């Protein structure tokens, strides 16, 4: 089955349920964090606790071991899954068949402890209702927090009615819950061993925090006399008061609850009577509280991740699922497609690369488009797109292609290894565009023929259902060089950065930007400057991207020295300057670029705020506009500036609230992902074709968004800056 077919199948079977649930969680997150007085401060605090904890991890493991043993429990540090399972098999014992009840734990999924214990004849029962549904259905989790998110109520009812044949068929969520509670309640009462995960474990007191809603983790511990807790070594934090920011953030970031029903703060072995549930004579207080406690800390690759400068941040992850819920692609396909052996979503790439290996991570890593919406959503500020880029780069290094000769002339990249052909094609898009413009319009005609579209599909995986960009014969730089405009008494001086698309394809928005800036008293130049490196970076070609970044820095430097601001039309390139160049360049090269760069509408906003005269430009006179900002622009916090400027010019603006348009650079062009891209775009199409928006002028900031909207709508979208010159 091809990748496209597999994705199509998963979307058809699970897409609707996954979409409804994840989008609900995502909206819940926005609503819930808005109530916090100092959300950003809390995230910073959480981040620094994790940085410190991972830095001091070996020392904290030792401290925790001492503390737990002093409390009367044991700690076992397992090197890998076999080691962990061997230890737990010994704890459970093999003298008789036991019932082991479990509360939800992704780490226990990772090491597949159920299978190990079942092989010894034990009965292992998942008590989280979602996990239990999957155990009954023999399926794997599709989401790290809500594991059965892909199953609708109807599907669960059908499953239960088939398997358990209840007297009255089950139908409502209430009935299904009651049925599961009763079935599992009996198993819990009779259980011998309780197994839990741990969201956090404190080294100072040996206290573990368990974040749950159903109450099954509480019961699992209270009803048994042997408690095994399984946790990755990264779950350790230094002290009890370190738990506070996480307790406030984890529910909000994940399912959008201010706090989940229960946060258990257990300091095992847990107190409280160990009772026999059928005893009708002994009062509860007369039972003893003797419990065995075993904390099994799992390494399984984590200590190596800690030594890996690019994967280390993965260990800060608190498994809240924000990066899954916010991700436009995840919302369509879920964790069965966007996931590996255990972990799914954006951060899943880091986990799977570190725990399972690059081959597993490489299977789903291309579903991350680098839109960066997860960066703001992550409560510990992990640069998840960067982890995906690095893993892609490493995966590229393992691939072999014998078709490289096809693109060698087009692809003067810096890669030491040989990324797949498709990635080299898109990664070297600068060369493609240069040839495209030089040979336009012939290049456009040729590229558009059936024959060449078939060849592009076959060799490059460029989907033939997509319209290709139309290269303009005259680039923005050439157009500008032929003009003779001087701005009298200029208020400011600026370089308009001729990004690849504005220079070669969407030249009109570049011309509009120049005219608007000049009208507002800015002395503008448009020199030829290297492309940002966004194209190779998005293909995981980091060395090539770095080489672009170095050229851009060298070419912009004299202009910045000369007192010019850098105005950027394409938001994905501004995001490169401000975010990714931090990774690609030394601070002394990156910081001046980031400091002096502005998104074009942000710059216009600044000019107006500083007294520029808006009357020289065209006013909207109440024109009704539908605006889709760009994913990376929103992550930079720059959507509001465009809206404010359009307001100022008397446009009536509504905005989309989808996380991403779905095109995301090359993603939507790829045959493997065309249908995912269109499914993501469909949400945007719906928003811009409802009665309130159907007749509005459509504007969008990013090249990709404009191309996607062009394919989704009858109306032709433009860049907002073009509205100001009409």
């Amino acid at each position, binding site marked *: 089955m091809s990748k496209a077919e597999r994705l199509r199948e998963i979307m058809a079977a699970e897409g609707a349920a996954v979409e409804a649930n994840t989008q609900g969680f995502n909206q819940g997150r926005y609503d819930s964090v808005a109530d916090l007085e100092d959300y950003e401060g809390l995230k910073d605090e959480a981040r620094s606790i994790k940085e410190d904890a991972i830095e001091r991890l070996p020392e904290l493991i030792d401290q925790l071991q001492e503390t737990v043993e002093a409390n009367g429990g044991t700690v076992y540090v397992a090197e890998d899954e076999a080691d962990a399972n061997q230890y737990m098999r010994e704890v459970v014992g093999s003298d008789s068949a036991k019932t082991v009840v479990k509360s939800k734990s992704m780490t226990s999924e990772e090491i597949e402890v159920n299978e190990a214990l079942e092989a010894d004849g034990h009965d292992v029962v998942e008590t989280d209702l979602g996990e239990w549904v999957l155990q009954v259905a023999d399926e794997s989790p599709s989401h790290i927090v809500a594991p*059965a998110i892909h199953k609708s109520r*109807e599907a*669960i009812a059908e499953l239960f009615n088939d398997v358990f044949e209840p007297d009255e068929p089950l139908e409502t969520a209430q009935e299904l819950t009651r049925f599961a509670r009763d079935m599992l309640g009996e198993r819990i009462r009779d259980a011998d061993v309780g197994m839990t995960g741990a969201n956090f474990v404190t080294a100072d007191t*040996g206290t573990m925090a368990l974040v749950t809603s159903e109450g099954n983790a509480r019961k699992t511990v209270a009803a048994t006399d042997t408690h095994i807790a399984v946790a990755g070594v990264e779950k350790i934090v230094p002290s009890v008061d370190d738990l506070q920011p996480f307790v406030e953030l984890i529910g909000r970031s994940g399912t959008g609850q201010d706090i989940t029903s229960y*946060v258990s703060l257990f300091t095992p072995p*847990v107190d409280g*009577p160990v009772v026999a549930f059928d005893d009708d004579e002994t009062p509860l207080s007369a039972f003893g509280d003797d419990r065995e406690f075993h904390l099994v800390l799992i390494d399984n690759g984590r200590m190596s991740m800690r030594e890996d400068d690019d994967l280390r941040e993965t260990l800060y992850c608190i498994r809240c699922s924000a990066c899954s819920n916010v991700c436009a692609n995840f919302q369509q396909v879920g964790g069965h497609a966007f996931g590996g052996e255990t972990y799914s979503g954006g951060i899943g790439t880091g986990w799977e690369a570190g725990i399972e290996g690059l081959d597993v991570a490489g299977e789903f890593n291309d579903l991350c488009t680098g839109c960066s919406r997860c960066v703001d959503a992550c409560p510990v500020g992990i640069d998840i797109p960067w982890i995906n880029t690095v893993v892609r780069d490493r995966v590229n290094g393992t691939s072999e292609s014998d078709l490289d000769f096809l693109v060698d002339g087009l692809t003067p990249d810096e890669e030491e290894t040989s990324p797949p052909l498709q990635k080299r094609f898109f990664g070297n898009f600068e060369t493609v565009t240069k040839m495209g413009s030089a040979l336009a319009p012939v290049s456009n005609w040729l590229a558009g023929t059936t024959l060449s579209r078939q060849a592009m599909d076959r060799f490059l995986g460029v989907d033939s259902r997509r319209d290709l960009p139309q290269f303009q014969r005259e680039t923005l730089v050439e157009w500008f060089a032929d003009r003779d405009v001087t701005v009298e008494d200029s208020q400011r001086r600026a370089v308009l950065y001729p990004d690849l698309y504005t220079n070669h394809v969407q030249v009109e928005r570049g011309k509009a930007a120049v005219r608007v800036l000049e009208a507002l008293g800015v002395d503008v130049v448009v020199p030829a400057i290297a492309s940002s490196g966004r194209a190779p970076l998005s293909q995981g070609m980091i060395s090539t991207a770095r080489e672009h970044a170095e050229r851009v820095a060298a070419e912009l430097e004299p202009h910045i020295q000369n007192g010019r601001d850098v105005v950027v039309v394409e938001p994905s390139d501004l995001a490169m300057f401000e975010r990714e160049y931090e990774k690609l360049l030394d601070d002394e090269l990156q910081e001046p670029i980031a400091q002096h760069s502005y998104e074009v509408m942000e710059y216009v906003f600044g000019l107006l705020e500083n007294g520029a005269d808006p009357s020289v430009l065209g006013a909207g006179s109440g024109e009704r506009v539908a605006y889709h900002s760009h994913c990376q622009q929103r992550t930079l916090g720059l959507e509001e500036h465009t809206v404010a400027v359009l307001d100022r010019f008397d446009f009536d603006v509504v905005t989309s609230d989808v996380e991403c348009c779905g095109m995301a650079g090359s993603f939507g062009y790829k045959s493997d992902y065309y249908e995912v891209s269109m499914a993501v775009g469909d949400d945007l199409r719906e928003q811009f074709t409802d009665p309130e928006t159907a007749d509005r002028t459509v504007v969008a900031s990013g090249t990709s968004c404009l191309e996607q909207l062009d394919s989704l709508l009858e109306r032709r979208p433009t860049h907002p800056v073009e509205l100001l010159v009409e």
Partner: protein
Amino acid sequence: MSIDLQAFEQSLTSVGVAAARVPPDEVAAAIEQFTTGPTVGVSLDRDGVDLPDSVDVDPTAAALEEATTGVTPAAFGIADYGSLVLPSTDGGSELVSLFVDHHVAVLDEADVVPDMKAAFERFARDIPEAYGDAIIATGPSATADMGALVKGAHGPSEVRVVVVEA
């Protein structure tokens, strides 16, 4: 009424928990109002505050299984969240608050802290001695795993609070 207490009562309402604030001598009556069916409980250990006679204090496990309502003390409340901190006790407080469909918690009005920060100052100071095994419980137990939000998953579907005036 203190600002914290006022905020606490508002938060309780927003998480679906009904509360009654009464003087010590009316606690038993207030609890009685909140109980349904066979009721078990653990001793409140507060001077001048009693459980109603109908409550089976320190029940057997079999009585716990039959009970609909469980009455336990709460150590303190967290105003911002409407959370109750439930300590584990030798008398089986954890079992009595969990293996029932209705939980009634009894809390002194002085024992309300404003926010999570203040709550963790207490935990940091008093774990493991006072709150070695404590639950921060907010609203009823719930699940969305069966296709819609359902109150009352493994734990209680109803939670009520009796706040004892100073």
